[in-house]
């Protein structure tokens, strides 16, 4: 059988084949089409969780510690599976029913340690092994920063009457091969520790496992231990993507100045079911 194809149809077919097989020029940045860069390291061999000299960028989009959408891990619990105490489950439902209108972070108070990582605007990680400290600086919310000690000090006793509980708690960390393990307690119960309206109490003890499997990925896994609000310990996590450009899309690739409190006009318009 002979199949006759007109010159016009042949041209059309060739054009169609070209569109299907040609690289999508312009739809991706140079970084997207380049091979994934390996995990950077400090001179002491430790994984570098932040910038390298001469590089630009910062950590940006992330996910949730429960549910499995987007950058959230596929092994996460779903919301209905969270082991909440009855009062905490009811409080979570109340917050959701009221559109999170009472969220302290929306009132420019510091978010919890995971919430700050999840906040848009991005963050940087600054490692100072010579000081036994790691700093996280956050562009979103009230422009906060967080300090993690790596000198082996123990966590404080939350029942110590001399302890002053804080928004971000007290953090101490150590390395397990290429994973930074951070433990934090001593929270003041004035904030929601992660996105998703999750309740917590002063018994909250968080363990973060932070790794960098490749240059553009920060893997964040959190274990929640809070007998006040949860019936058992549980874990979840997400990946954070590296941002090459600034928030305004410019090539500068730096955190921008942002203060939630400046010209804040939203709170008066928050609506709930009550």
């Amino acid at each position, binding site marked *: 059988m002979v199949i006759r194809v007109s010159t016009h149809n042949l041209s059309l077919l060739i054009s169609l084949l070209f569109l299907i097989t040609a690289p999508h020029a312009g739809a991706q940045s140079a970084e997207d089409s380049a091979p994934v860069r390996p995990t950077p390291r400090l001179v002491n061999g430790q994984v570098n969780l932040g910038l390298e000299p001469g590089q630009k960028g910062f950590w940006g989009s992330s996910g949730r510690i429960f549910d499995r959408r987007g950058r959230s891990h596929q092994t996460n619990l779903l919301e209905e599976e969270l082991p909440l*105490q*009855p*009062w905490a*489950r*009811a*409080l979570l439902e*109340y*917050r959701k029913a*009221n559109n999170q*209108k*009472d969220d*302290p972070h929306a009132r420019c108070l510091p978010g919890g340690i995971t919430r700050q990582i999840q906040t848009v605007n991005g963050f940087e990680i600054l490692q100072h092994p010579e000081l036994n400290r790691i700093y996280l600086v956050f562009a979103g919310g009230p422009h906060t920063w967080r300090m993690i000690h790596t000198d082996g000090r123990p966590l404080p006793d939350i*029942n110590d*009457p001399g*302890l*002053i*509980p804080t928004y971000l708690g007290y953090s101490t960390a150590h390395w397990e091969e290429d994973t930074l393990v951070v433990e934090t307690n001593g929270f*003041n*119960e*004035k*904030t*929601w520790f992660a996105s998703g309206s999750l*309740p*917590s*109490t*002063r*018994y909250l003890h968080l363990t973060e496992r932070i790794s960098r499997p490749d240059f553009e990925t920060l893997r964040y896994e959190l274990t929640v231990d809070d*007998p*006040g*609000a949860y019936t058992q310990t549980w874990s979840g996590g997400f990946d954070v993507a590296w941002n090459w450009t600034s928030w305004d899309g410019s090539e500068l690739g730096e955190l921008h100045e942002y203060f939630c409190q400046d010209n804040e006009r939203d709170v008066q318009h928050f609506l*709930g079911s*009550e």
Partner: protein
Amino acid sequence: MINSSSLLNRKTLATVFIILLGFSCPLFSQEGHPLVGSWSGDRLVNDKNTRVLVLLDLQPDQEITGTIIENGVRIPLSDVTLDPQDWSVNISAVGEDRAGNTLSYKIQGVVGNLGSATQRNITGTWDDGTDTGSFRLQRN
């Protein structure tokens, strides 16, 4: 001229301060368990308002403990329950007044403005064994 009302308030505040110093836990909890923290307000006794302070804390086993401070006297709570279905609260307290008379309180109320850190309240009825009157507590 000395204002007796302000003197009483200063004495009450001083007593509260001293009692709070003895509390081993910080009572911040604006966003934790809805009941945890310090609550102050009035209860109606024989058509007269009496100032009260209620301090509540959550234990890891979910028991809610605390104390009532009234007229400079500390009355420990014997039982506190919160029903998360309707946010109703039941509090029982047993103690003694300055004269050594037994005080037995049964308090029933409902948490209002649950989501607010500054406007949360508990309203209801307060039975002191002799009289039952209304009360209103505001989260501090």
